């Protein structure tokens, strides 16, 4: 009986040889859609947009499937497409700045998610600190340039290695480190100004 693992291995083997066959595409979507959606959600912070961009990502992957030669993993290749889509989306969004200015903030969603994440037996102060810390990171990440935000999300939300991030973003590992350094510094600065415990502790 064919398991999901052997099927995935077969897809990888076939893609290395001759691109992705159309028949394998449904299995590929099934295998990667959750993680691609997660990457995109971390970048755009809007579930509907993340869903649309996830669909766009797989459509573009289908169009380009014959060009995939297996130099990187399928997931890394998909992340590369997703990042480019999110970047294009961010460019388009800038045009609607004034419209968005009057829309309600989406931070309620962040707070609700943090309720679920927070340890149920932790103290109220710990829960508050965890929620505020994560919300501050989200806010800091939202203000990063698209490339830095992508690198930051891939590292701290997806826990990808620096080499995987370099492959997905098509930049050198040293440049990935540079982006991470600036992003972490921005997060530290924001934590220092917004989180009570950090005040007066910025280096």
């Amino acid at each position, binding site marked *: 009986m064919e398991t999901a693992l052997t099927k995935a291995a077969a897809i990888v083997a076939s893609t290395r040889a001759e691109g992705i066959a159309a028949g394998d595409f*449904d299995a590929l*979507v*099934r295998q990667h*859609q*959750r993680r691609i*959606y*997660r990457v995109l*959600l*971390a970048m755009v912070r809007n*579930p509907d947009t*993340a*869903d649309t961009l*996830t*669909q766009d990502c*797989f*459509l573009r992957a*289908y169009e380009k499937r014959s060009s995939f030669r297996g130099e990187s993993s399928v997931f890394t290749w998909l992340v590369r497409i997703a990042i480019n889509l999110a970047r294009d989306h961010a460019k388009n969004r800038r045009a609607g700045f004034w419209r968005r200015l009057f829309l309600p903030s989406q931070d309620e*969603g*962040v707070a609700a*998610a*943090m309720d*679920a*994440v927070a340890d149920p037996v932790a103290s109220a102060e710990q829960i508050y*600190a*965890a*929620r505020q*810390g*994560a919300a*501050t*990171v*989200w806010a800091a*990440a939202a203000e990063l340039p698209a490339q830095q935000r992508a690198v930051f*999300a891939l590292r*701290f*939300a997806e*826990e990808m290695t*620096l080499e995987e991030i370099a492959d997905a973003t098509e930049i050198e590992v040293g440049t990935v*480190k540079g982006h*991470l*350094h600036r992003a*972490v*510094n921005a*997060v*530290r600065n924001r*934590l220092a100004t917004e*989180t009570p*415990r*950090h005040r007066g*502790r910025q*280096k």
Partner: protein
Amino acid sequence: MNEEHLSEEQWTAALLNEDREARTHIAECAECAAEEQRLRAALAGYGEEAREAAQRPAAFWAWQRDAIAGRLAAQRTPARRLVWAGTLALVILLAAAVVRQAPPQPAAVDPDEALLVDVQRSLRREVPATLAPATLLANEMNRAAEAYENRNSPQRR
């Protein structure tokens, strides 16, 4: 900046577990250890929140796959129609070009038939075309002779 503590670069390296010196400092410095704990907690909260926010029921993923398949089918259908329409238009254009540009083919002529037609034409003429000047000269001479005879005939005298 306080040089007793970690630099900005060292903080990033420490968070990536890449700087042994920074790790040593954090292990010895309560203040930096506390900050690292807060930073790591905030970053871990961010990562967990990102994963938590992306949780969707199985029906959502099935719906998304259907949406992708539907959009793929919609993309392919017009493309196929376009290919067929383009092919048909090309065939029609080529046919029209061939019909317009082809020179009219002369009808095949049987050499025996052509010779027969020539003979018939020659026979229909009173004299062969090449002897026409001689015919004119002979007619002129005949008319001159008749005129002479008419002038010298006895009846006239």
